[in-house]
């Protein structure tokens, strides 16, 4: 670690960027320790600035809520040099990331698609329509992809819609379920155990193993909005997706 990596935190609210060692083959640039869209935007700016340097020997660059981790081969890329570059890109100016995309995803709410919708409405003392409306009028940020391939951590939900996880997780959440927990929303790309509350389902394919260039539809830094569709429209879209009649670009916000 370079001597200036742990520079003293000033009195300002924003802590100084610092380098954290993640073994000999990875370095983490930590920009903060909170879930906060502004902090996440700085992570994405650092990611973009690092990508522009086109350094050799990097295998993966993983942005999270608050940090950027570079997995690299220390026999090909000098660790000290990488550390210096990371502290430089930490200060990259915020700008609309060239990589960021705005998505508008259709969702069928309630019934068997969103078995927790009624309970969520009751717990928040709102109507089901108000819950749906809140989800469809809030532009959510993709903070992070993790947990499962293509699983997006989206945020942030309105204060009144924030509920704890289910006490007893489901053994099997159906693939493509839209779910919420706390300030966050997510879509399960795969059937999986899960403790988030299920509100609806999207016909959109979130992870495509055949697309090696961009297997995950959503990327960190993107934004996501939902638009409600009826049961028939959901089935029509799902069939078209399965038949590969709909290109992923169809889901970009116009």
């Amino acid at each position: 670690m370079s001597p200036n990596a742990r520079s003293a935190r000033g009195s300002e609210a924003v802590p100084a960027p610092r380098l954290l060692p993640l073994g000999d083959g990875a370095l983490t640039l930590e920009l903060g320790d909170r879930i906060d869209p502004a902090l996440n935007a700085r992570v994405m700016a650092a990611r973009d600035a690092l990508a522009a340097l086109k350094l050799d020997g990097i295998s993966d660059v993983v942005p999270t809520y608050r940090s950027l981790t570079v997995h690299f081969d220390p026999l090909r890329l000098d660790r000290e040099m990488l550390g210096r570059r990371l502290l430089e890109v930490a200060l990259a100016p915020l700008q609309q990331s060239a990589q960021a995309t705005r998505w508008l995803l259709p969702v069928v709410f309630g019934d068997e698609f969103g078995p927790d919708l009624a309970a969520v409405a009751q717990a928040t003392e709102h109507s089901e329509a108000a819950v749906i409306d809140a989800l469809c009028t809030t532009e959510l940020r993709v903070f992070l992809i993790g947990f499962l391939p293509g699983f997006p951590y989206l945020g942030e939900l309105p204060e009144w819609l924030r509920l704890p996880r289910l006490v007893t997780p489901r053994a099997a959440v159906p693939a493509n379920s839209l779910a919420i927990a706390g300030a966050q929303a997510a879509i399960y790309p795969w059937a999986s155990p899960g403790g988030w509350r299920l509100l609806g389902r999207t016909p959109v394919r979130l992870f495509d193993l055949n697309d090696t260039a961009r297997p995950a539809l959503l990327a960190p830094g993107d934004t996501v909005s939902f638009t409600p569709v009826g049961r028939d429209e959901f089935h029509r879209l799902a069939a078209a997706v399965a038949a590969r009649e709909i290109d992923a670009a169809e889901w970009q916000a116009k």
Partner: protein
Amino acid sequence: MIEILDCPMPVIVQDAGRPGYRHLGVPLSGALDPEWLAIANALVGNPASSAALEMRLLGLRLRAMAPLTFALAGACTAQIEDRSGELRQAAAWDNHALAQGETLIVGKLHDGIAYLAFAGGLDLPEVLGSRSTYVRARIGGLDGRALKAGDCLKVGAGATPNPLRLPQAPHRPDGPLRIVPGPQREYFTDAAWRRLLGDEFIVSREADRMGLRLDGPRLEHDPARGGDIVSDAVTPGVIQVPGDGRPIILLADCQTVGGYPKIATVIGADLPRLGRALPGQTLRFVEVGVDQAIAARRQAANDLAECIAGMVPSGAQLDLIALNNANLIDGVIDARQANQP
């Protein structure tokens, strides 16, 4: 083509892993012991990253549907049964021919893990650039799952005969696993750090390709910080500690991010040793600096290249030495490039 007749423990297809997709939540995966995978492949003349079978604890029985050449890396009891039922031994660290209809029987794996490579590699579709199996999302390998009786796997064509053996089993280092302090070292008391370095830990039964949960002393968090962080990235070798204080060492199939504080990371050079660790095994740790860790990684790459360069012709086929040497240079060139300062 091979047909799996029986596999009592999970046997899965692995290669060198699936880098480049961790920002999308796709784990690295790949062989738990990439060194032995490389050795198994070199013995049959494959590139180091060819797909092979990873076996744990117990081997399998399989039948050759067509003539093939295989090699085993990892000490084990293995025999070949010909069509008349006669058995002959198949030593590890050497390669052997299977005639059509012959059966390979791999029994107990004395090192806990072993790799079975076939000349030509396993011919399966690449998924996101790799044939490694990631069972949790059913990606790669054969339908994204462990093998079962009745499965048939195609062996790649066009293999060049290159029968080699290792004069002796590769050196297995022992002693403490080397660690560097983790990104959240400050989340732990100094007493916890001393315990990590001074005490013994036992690999529990909760051990799979995602990680090893350790029994032994609890590592307590600094009460002012607690046992949760806002998730950030993890990597194989990370020692993370949930609120109960029981450390978990992450392995090849670990998730890409995690919300537990990470007290330390096992260095890259010692990851293959973690891959061989079994429930009940005692682990000790020793702290090294990052510079020492990188030097150890360079040494390990050199040792592997030397091990492969030191392979000798299998049996009496000495006239193949020249051919072997020519092929070997292909096999180790990556490692040699990687060793340049």
